[in-house]
C-alpha cells in the first residue's frame, strides 16, 4: 500500500503563513486509512528531505502568493510553476530547492502536489485573514477529497 504524506509548512504566529500547519492539525482529527500520514513541520522546511524519502505520494500545504483573491486555493505541481518571484525560507533554503535535492538523491516521491492558499496577512500573531478563516471548512473538504483521490490511484 502506498504511503501518502500530508505536510503543513509555515509559521503559526505569522498570520496567514500558519495556514499549512493549522490545516494539518485539523485534518488529522478525521478518520483516514493508516497509510496516510500527517506532518506539521512548522518552520523547518529542511526536515522535508528526510520525510520525503519514506513517502510515495505527498500533499504539501503552504501559504502561497499567486494571482488571485485572498483565500483562494489551488492544487499544483512544481512543473506548473512558471517562475518563483521570491521565496523566503529557513536558512535561505526553500521548498523547491529541497525537493530538487531530494530528487537528486533519488529519494523523492513519485507524486508531489502542493496546495497553495493565497495569503495576504503575514503580521505577527495568530490571527489570519477573514477570507482564509471563512474557507477553512472548504479547504478541509478539498484536502479530504484530494487524499482519497491520491489514495485510489
Amino acid at each position: 500500500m502506498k504511503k501518502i504524506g500530508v505536510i503543513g509548512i509555515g509559521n503559526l504566529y505569522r498570520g496567514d503563513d500558519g495556514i499549512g500547519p493549522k490545516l494539518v492539525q485539523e485534518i488529522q482529527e478525521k478518520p483516514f486509512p493508516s497509510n496516510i500520514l500527517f506532518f506539521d513541520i512548522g518552520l523547518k522546511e529542511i526536515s522535508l528531505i528526510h520525510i520525503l524519502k519514506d513517502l510515495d505520494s505527498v500533499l504539501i500545504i503552504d501559504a502561497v502568493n499567486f494571482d488571485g483573491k485572498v483565500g483562494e486555493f489551488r492544487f499544483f505541481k512544481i512543473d506548473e510553476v512558471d517562475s518563483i518571484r521570491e521565496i523566503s525560507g529557513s536558512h535561505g533554503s526553500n521548498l523547491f530547492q529541497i525537493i530538487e535535492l531530494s530528487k537528486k538523491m533519488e529519494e523523492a516521491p513519485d507524486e508531489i502536489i502542493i496546495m497553495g492558499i493565497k495569503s495576504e496577512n503575514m503580521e505577527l500573531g495568530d490571527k489570519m485573514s477573514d477570507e482564509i478563516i471563512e474557507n477553512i471548512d472548504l479547504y478541509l473538504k478539498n484536502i479530504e477529497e484530494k487524499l482519497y483521490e491520491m489514495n485510489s490511484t
Partner: protein
Amino acid sequence: MSEDIKVDVEYLTRVEGHGNIVVDVEDGDLKKCEWQVVEAPRYFESLVVDRSWKELHHITSRICGICSIGHTLTSLKATEDAMDIDVSEQDKLLRRLALHGENMQSHVLHVGYLALPDLLGAPSVVPLASTHTEEVKTVIRLHRLANEMSSLITGRTTHPQRLIPGGFSKLPTEKELIDLKSKLKSSVDDLTAVAELLKEVSPNLPDFTRETEFISLTHDDEYALYGGDIKSTDVGTNPVDNYLDVTNEYIVPQSTAKYTKNNRESYMVGALARLNNNYEQLSPMAKEVADKFGLKPVNHNPYMNNVAQLVEVVHSVEDSIGLIDKILDRGLEEQKEYHQPDIEVKAGRGIGAVEVPRGILFHDYTYNEKGECTEANCIIPTNQNHGNIQHDMEKLVPEMVGQKSEDEMELTLEMLVRAYDPCISCSTHYLDVEFR
C-alpha cells in the same frame, strides 16, 4: 593603493532570516562598513504576556525552527525556576540528550548544507549533490540521525511536544534508547568522513584574527549545554541570575535587532565560544578532531566556528552514548503516557539559560499567582553576535583592500557572517509564484 570598492549584499543567502552587508571604500578609505539586520521585530515577549505557564514553552518554541528544542528547554527552565518545580535526574539526562540531538541537527545542517558549498566553490548544496554525491549523502545521513534522535526524545523533530514543565509527557523505551545508541556508534564513520572533507577544504577558511571576548555557560562536571554559570574569557564567571549585567543590550541605527556587549565593545557566543571556555571537557574523540584542525583555546578566528561546530557534533555523539548508558545503568523509570507532573502554580520570577546551537540563550519570565505571564524577556544568541560581526567586518575590510578583488571581498564577508550561523528570525515561509 587607491581603490574604490562597493559591496552591497542584500538578503544574504544561506543564513536564517534577512541581513545585509554594506561596504563602501573610496580611494582606499573605508567610508561605510555595516552588518545590517533589517527584519521587523517579532515581539514574542509581548505575545506570551497573559498566556498560561502551560503554553509558554510551546509558543516560544516557534521563535525558531532550528533551535526549537533549545527555546523549549530554556522556557521550561525559566518556568520551573519561577515556580520551584523539580525535575528528576532521569529527566535531566533525557533533556541533555534532546539538546545533543538539536545541536547535531543544527551543526550538521550548517556545516554540511550551508558552509561546505562556500569551501567547495558551489552556490548551494543542490549542485553538490551532483559533484559530491557521496559526501552529500553522508551529510544527509548524519542530519537524519540527529532528526530521529530529536524525534525519539521530544516527540517531534522540531517544535517538541513531550517536553513539559517538570519533565516529559512521554518517555522513550529502553529498547528505543538501545537502538539509538547503536545508531550513534555506527555514525562514527560518517563523522570521520565529514571531518576529513572539512580538513581537506579548511585551507579555504580565511586566516583572520581579531581578539574578542567569548561568553558561554560553564559547568564543573560537564561540557555545559543544559546549565551552569555564565563564563567570559575576559572576566570569569557570573551566575545566570545576573545575565542582564553580562548582556547589556543596546540599539544601533542600522539594525532592528538589539546588540549586546560586556567587557569589550562586543562578544561572541556559539560553538567557538563554548570550545574556548570549556575545551578540557570535550569528549576524547571531539578533542582529537579539534587537534586535527589545530583548534585550541583561545582561538580568535571567527571562521573556525565552522570547525568548532563539527567538533561539537562529535562531542554530542560521544556524550550521548555515555548519557544513554547512564540512563540504562540506572534503569529507566517508566511513567504512563500523557504524564503530567503535579505542579503547584504560584507567582514568581524565573530565569532559564541553555546553550543552543548558536550560543547562550536566556528566557526570563514573571508569573502572577494564576500562573499567567506578566513580563518576559528573551535574549537570543544571534543578537549577542551582531556586534561582534560588525567589529570583525571593520577590521577585516581594511585588511582586504588592495589584496582581494571586490568579488573575493564579498565572498569573504558572506563567509564571515555565515560562520556565525546567524538565525536572524524565522520569518514567513510562503512561496511567491507565477503559474504557466
